[in-house]
């Protein structure tokens, strides 16, 4: 995939992806990066991920807490807030509304 284009797309939706991952369970930075990769979005470097997490925290969409995990050292765990869930619902709807016509427009070109 064109790396620059992927970057531009991610810039718009990475916060929503993170909120989506946090919808069901809390998590920490490294685990989130792995989950994003496993979901097929591709490798996300820490330098990209943490500023997004900080912004989500600052705007009150997630809360964070340093805690010892079941195993291993203390980590900063992120948990989605009610505002975060609302933002995910709204943002998710907007995204789907946005990509549907885009998909429609470009889908035919893909098969040629």
């Amino acid at each position, binding site marked *: 995939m064109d790396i620059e284009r992927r970057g531009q797309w991610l810039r718009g939706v990475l916060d929503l992806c993170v909120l989506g991952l946090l919808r069901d369970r809390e998590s920490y*930075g490294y685990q989130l990066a792995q989950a994003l990769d496993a979901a097929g979005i591709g490798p996300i470097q820490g*330098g990209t991920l*943490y500023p997004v997490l900080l912004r989500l925290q600052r705007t009150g969409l997630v809360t964070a807490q340093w805690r010892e995990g079941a195993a291993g050292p203390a980590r900063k765990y992120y948990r989605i807030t009610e505002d975060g869930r609302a933002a995910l619902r709204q943002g998710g709807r907007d995204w789907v509304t946005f990509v549907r016509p885009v998909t429609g427009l470009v889908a035919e070109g893909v098969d040629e």
Partner: protein
Amino acid sequence: MNADDWLRAFAAELHHRRVRPDDARHVVAEAATHLRDGGGDPTVVFGPPGRYAAAIAESVGAAPPPAPSAPGPVRLHARGITKRYGRRTVLRDAGLTVRAGQIAAVVGANGCGKSTFLRICAGLVSPDAGEVTVGSRLGYCPQQGGTADFLLPDEHFVLVGAGLGLARGPARRAGRAAARQLGWDTPGDVLTRHLSGGTRQKLNLTMSTLTEPDVLLLDEPYQGFDRGTYVDFWDQLGRLRDAGRAIVVVTHLLDRLDRVDLVLDLTPAGGTDRNGDAGWGGRA
């Protein structure tokens, strides 16, 4: 650049960009945890320290500049300090301005000239270029050495005190009082050579504060300190700062950078990126 160097440079950059100490501490710790979990070259995972620090600063916002009333008059002003050993240039055009009531940390990788810079400020070594203006009274605490093996701690206090014209009794009392600030009860009859490394450093530090200097230059003075003493050390520095001293401390430990007012990173250019381009990851 290894992970420790990268984290050090990153912490200095955050400080440089006036990220609040609490925020900076969390971000550095989180980056360290991430690197421990995932490994990898920090400049690939996070990018150059300067750029990542800029992204963080943009995400969390920076602290307001300090109240203008706080800093006192300039006590130490070093400019254009250049020092060469043979063909190797250790310091190139380094400078630092410290005011009364400020603590400055001098950080950087091993061998980047931190100690040399401090010794030049103390007037113990001549630079190849540059000059230093300092307050009238200087205190200097070396990394090690600087004490006499066959003298008692009390005799060190008497010796230093005599330089200031203090009589024996007052000098001894002043020394013991200063030592207590570090949580050290000076033994009356133990020769310095029988003190542990950490205790000898307490003596070393006590000697440098005994002269009540306006400018205190400390070269990693906490070697061999246990955890409690280390905390006492920073508390003591805080008290000295509040008393209006200008303090310069060479350090490679970054966990206390929130306690300092200025950071001078002597890592040679190219080691850190100060351009501050936020990169694509840093903008929403």
